[in-house]
């Protein structure tokens, strides 16, 4: 079983993007960081007790599924859209959603375009090997418009083309657009169009058929989300893990019940996961939130209590 393999190996092999600032990219010191990376670290902390016991495997759109299927990686946390065929036909198991995304467009302000419906005849840069290609084809087909797809391998190169005017618009997940705009010389010169042309629920995934391991990843993610809902933060977690009068917090933090044991982990698993990078909200804020250059609002990714879709199932 994967869980045993990981424990025996002492290192979690986690597949991530080859470089998408905010989500997964090595920094100048060569350490991986980002929103997707934090999920890997949380799982590593939960299972192995060490958030740095992760071997990051950078994967392209093409290689990610084979890497997972063949066992090269234990989990994939690489802004991968949860779709029917990936789940059913490719035999993977999505263990939750860590970011509700949707595909959008960015255009230079000077073009004077304010809606995606005005893009008839435009050249559109697109990172090849993702669902965005299919959504784009569907959207233009549905709206009876022409376009000129300019496929390109990496995000960085697509942005370069967009900046040089080789294409009129760039399309990718809205989160990516925001992240990219942050790197522009004059972010204000570019607008993200209001249309979101697809649903892109992104989440970590594991191989089909190994439910124990799937549960570990799923509930680690849920623990991060629930932690935010219940007010557990990296600042107060040490204090809370002494025991509180909220049964659910106690159950999560292992002072009550034996949830950890059920997962095949020790009682402290969630404490370590949350300590690794904070709760969901903290992770969001640190890597992609409004105070970062990426500057994403919570939007759909707010807790359900605040009108968003983040809704962790109960720990009981």
């Amino acid at each position, binding site marked *: 079983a994967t869980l045993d393999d990981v424990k025996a190996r002492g290192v979690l092999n986690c597949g991530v993007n080859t470089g998408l600032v905010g989500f997964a990219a090595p920094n100048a010191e060569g350490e991986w960081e980002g929103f997707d990376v934090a999920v890997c670290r949380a799982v590593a902390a939960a299972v192995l007790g060490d958030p740095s016991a992760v071997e990051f495997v950078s994967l392209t759109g093409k290689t990610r*599924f084979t890497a997972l299927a063949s066992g090269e990686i234990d989990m994939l946390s690489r802004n991968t859209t949860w779709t029917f065929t990936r789940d059913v036909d490719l035999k993977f198991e999505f263990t939750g959603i860590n970011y509700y995304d949707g595909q959008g467009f960015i255009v230079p302000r000077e073009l004077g375009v304010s809606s995606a419906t005005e*893009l008839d005849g435009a*050249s559109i840069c697109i990172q*090849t090997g993702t669902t965005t*290609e299919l959504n784009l084809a569907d959207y233009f087909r549905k709206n009876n418009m022409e376009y000129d797809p300019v496929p390109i*391998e990496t995000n960085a190169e697509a942005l370069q*083309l967009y900046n040089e005017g080789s294409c009129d618009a760039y399309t990718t997940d809205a989160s990516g657009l925001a992240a990219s705009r942050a790197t522009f010389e004059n972010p204000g010169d570019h607008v993200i169009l209001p249309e979101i042309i697809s649903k892109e629920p992104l989440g970590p995934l594991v191989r089909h058929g190994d439910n124990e391991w799937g549960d570990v990843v799923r509930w680690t993610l849920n623990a991060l989300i629930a932690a935010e809902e219940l007010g557990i933060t990296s600042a107060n977690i040490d204090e809370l893990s002494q025991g509180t009068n909220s049964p659910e917090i106690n159950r999560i933090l292992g002072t009550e019940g034996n949830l950890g044991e059920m997962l095949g982990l020790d009682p402290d698993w969630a404490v370590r996961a949350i300590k690794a990078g904070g709760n969901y909200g903290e992770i969001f804020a640190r890597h992609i939130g409004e105070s970062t250059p990426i500057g994403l609002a919570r939007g759909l990714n707010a807790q359900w209590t605040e009108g968003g879709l983040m809704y962790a199932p109960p720990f009981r």
Partner: protein
Amino acid sequence: MASVTDPEPPRESFRLSMLLNDTRYRGYTFQFIALLLLILFMAYLGWNLVRNLVDQGQDISFEFMGQPASYDINQRLIPYDSQDTHLRAAFVGVLNTLLVAFLGCVTATVLGVLAGVLRLSKNWLVAKLMAFYVEIFRNVPVLIWILIIFFVMTAALPAPSAFRGDDPDSSMLFGAFAFTNRGVYVPRPIWEAGSAIVVAVFLASLVAVFAYRRYATKLLYDTGRLLPMGWPSLAILIVPTLLAFFALGQPISLEYPELRGFNFQDGIQVRGSLIALWFALAIYTGAFIAENVRAGIMSVSHGQTEAAAALGLRPRRIMSLVILPQALRVVIPPVISQYLNLTKNSSLAIAVGYMDVTGTLGGITLNQTGRAIESVMLLMLFYLVISLTISAVMNLYNNAVKLKER
């Protein structure tokens, strides 16, 4: 000498111990062992494959090729839209591969021959310059060249928006060619009634040029009179076509590209990715071809030139009658394998988003369907067919021109 009716060499009866000791049967023993090992190895791989597929609940099937591809391809030589099948998408890619390979080979040949010949020039500067070109391009990976040329184009050429407005930053060359960082837009010919005749005349004059050249040679052979070749050929090629063109009221006109909406419309767009790939491959391969050409010319021994000179032939005739025919035999086989390399290198199209077969079948299709084994297998099959075809052609050529020996 020996009559064919001589008895066939007789055979000897077989004993088991001969399997190891007898020169005639040892071979069979080794081959049997080798075959056995190979079969075992293959079986091992196959068995792993089956187990892996079962473990992952997958199978091998090519059905996905019949399903809608649902992605768009920007350069299509045959009609295609996102509702067509993956098979058709793959085919669009195949044609794009062949297109860039063809363009690349032609350009590389021109560059290579030029550089190869000039490198042997007596002009020191030119020879050094060509040596510089050859060395620079041979010694840097082609992938880097593709990327450099691609980014040079996107960075150095203006975007179409620069052509907009009353006082644009850029303007079209002759009002007909637009060089943009999305590619080059050139006029498209429009064939009206009568254009077929012009084309026919042109083809006829092509034939006429060959006929004239044959006639000139024949005249030399018959009477010893040598007609000029160059100018008359050119005249025969151009003049009748021009006459027909104007006589029929200019039936072929050009549709100029024009900036409408986001892009230039009408005309033909030669995409930037195609140009980058095409030029990078051509310049890179051209450097290799230049070396082949140089080696070919140098392979003709000096004695041949001397013998021809001693017979009184002039340098130009020595070149065309003695050196070139011999050098070509040496040059053509390696040049053909350079063509093969170029075709294989065109699979790097993926680096600049040119939608060749590696980009469609081996790229988006593979990605969207997750059918890795099947896609990669088909992809390899395609390249294998291409290279086997090219080698077959090369063998035919080699056999055709092989110098007759004893």
